[in-house]
């Protein structure tokens, strides 16, 4: 327990096996364990908005499963194209470091989310609108994503020094990850669980396209309908 917390400290401070300079043995496995542990914790806290009611306790479980699932499935979907793009650019020999960098960034997202979980919990206690609860979580995820850039860039700095093509790869990764991530978040709804609607793992109408919905929304606002 204490040992793994010290490893989280290393990840945050960029020390020891997570200094970003070399590939650490078993580093990626440790990072994936962080993603699952801290992601599940934040997800469960996220679900407490309605999940504390007696017959809705499985909302905690669903939300807890969904946060790491969201990050890891998005990651898995983007990985093949990232691998191929790196290989084509002639950066294959650095792929181990690049992979560790993007996994470390996701571990950082979940650690930051977990440290903000008490704030989310407190805000849940004092707000009564579901929309506000969604917004609170949006702010927390945004903060975590920005904070994870520190870890991502710390890991990528030695690679970029080696070849400036790595900078392009980093930006391409971010664009694809965000593009897929938005749709993944849409498909995996509900994360929080709206009061009044029954607890389900997926929403009945979930298999839409976030971008199409967004485009229709913008059109309807512009059209005044």
């Amino acid at each position, binding site marked *: 327990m204490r040992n793994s917390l010290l490893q989280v*400290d290393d990840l*945050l*401070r*960029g*020390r020891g096996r997570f200094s970003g*300079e070399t590939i650490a043995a078993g580093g990626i496995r440790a990072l994936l364990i962080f993603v699952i542990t801290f992601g599940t914790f934040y997800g469960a806290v996220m679900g407490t908005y309605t999940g504390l009611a007696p017959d809705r306790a499985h909302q905690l479980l669903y939300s807890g499963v969904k946060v790491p699932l969201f990050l890891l499935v998005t990651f898995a979907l983007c990985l093949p194209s990232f691998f191929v793009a790196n290989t084509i650019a002639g950066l294959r020999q650095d792929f181990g470091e690049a992979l560790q960098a993007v996994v470390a960034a996701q571990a*950082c997202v979940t*650690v*930051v989310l*977990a*440290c*903000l*979980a*008490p*704030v989310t*919990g*407190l*805000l849940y*206690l*004092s*707000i*009564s609108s579901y929309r506000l609860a969604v917004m609170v979580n949006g702010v927390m995820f945004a903060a975590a994503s920005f*904070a994870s*850039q*520190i*870890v991502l*860039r*710390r890991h*990528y*700095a*030695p690679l*970029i*020094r080696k070849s400036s093509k790595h*900078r392009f790869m980093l930006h391409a990764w971010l664009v694809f990850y965000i593009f897929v991530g938005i749709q993944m978040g849409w498909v995996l709804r509900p994360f929080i669980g709206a009061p009044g609607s029954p607890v389900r793992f997926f929403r009945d109408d979930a298999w839409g396209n976030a971008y199409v919905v967004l485009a229709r929304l913008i059109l309807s606002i512009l059209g005044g309908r």
Partner: protein
Amino acid sequence: MAGMFSSFRDLDQLLRGNATTPELLGKGTDHLKLGSNLTVVILLGIIYGVSMGLFGVLTHEPPINLQVLSSALKVPALFLLTLVVTFPSLYVFGALLGVDLSPAQILRALMAAIAVNLAVLASLAPITAFFTLTTTSYSFMTLLNVAFFALAGFVGIGFLLTVLQRIELARRTLVESRHGKPAEPKPAVADGVGIVEPDEVRDACAPPPSQPAREIGGSTWGADRGLDIRFPPPPTPRELRGRSAKRVFYAWLMLYCFVGAQMAWVLRPFIGAPGLPFGVFREREGNFLQSVLRSISNLLN
């Protein structure tokens, strides 16, 4: 009982500034005792809570005696719960930005700051009690308490800033004396967004040669090392990071104030509004800011 007296002796040292001299803080924050400051926080919180709860006894018909007990428990809980909620994020963001303090050190400094905060607040308790005796306006009492909490909070934050700056200064002096001469800054890579430094914080801790009394982040760090009026050279990567760490600290302070206000809202009522029956907590509704604005408009109308 003896423990309690020694806790208050420690508080006295803290308030006089004897416990926060640069020499002592250079050795770390181990001398700021966590348990002793916790005792002080709880006792002084109870004192102020009682003075807040008096309103329910004096202005309600029949008097709500339970409000005194409830407020006495809630004031210390307010400060300690706010600390619990905000401490993890302070640690994580600090570690991400290279603030070289362990969680235990940060916690001791924060608990000392909260003790100072409550010392100021409890010293205002007689004034709150006096106004309670002479006022029947609930809005006025609400705003008076908000003002007193804010005043005490500013003193506590000022204390915390001083402590953290002195620790940082002591560390830089220590690194300089250990290396004999200041270390050369390590090469850094600008990557478009920020400066990424490859090495550890400690290695690049000292400023480059010929600028021993530089100020960091445009503030007055190092001002007590004598006058050194020169045009400042461009900032080193270490200093840039120092600045971003400072910005994060200020952002965290805003989070702390926000969480504190929201925590107070969740834990309400502290004073006990006229016309409402006694309850330990109220329904979920509204927020802190709305309520302050409503009190102001009530008072003016």
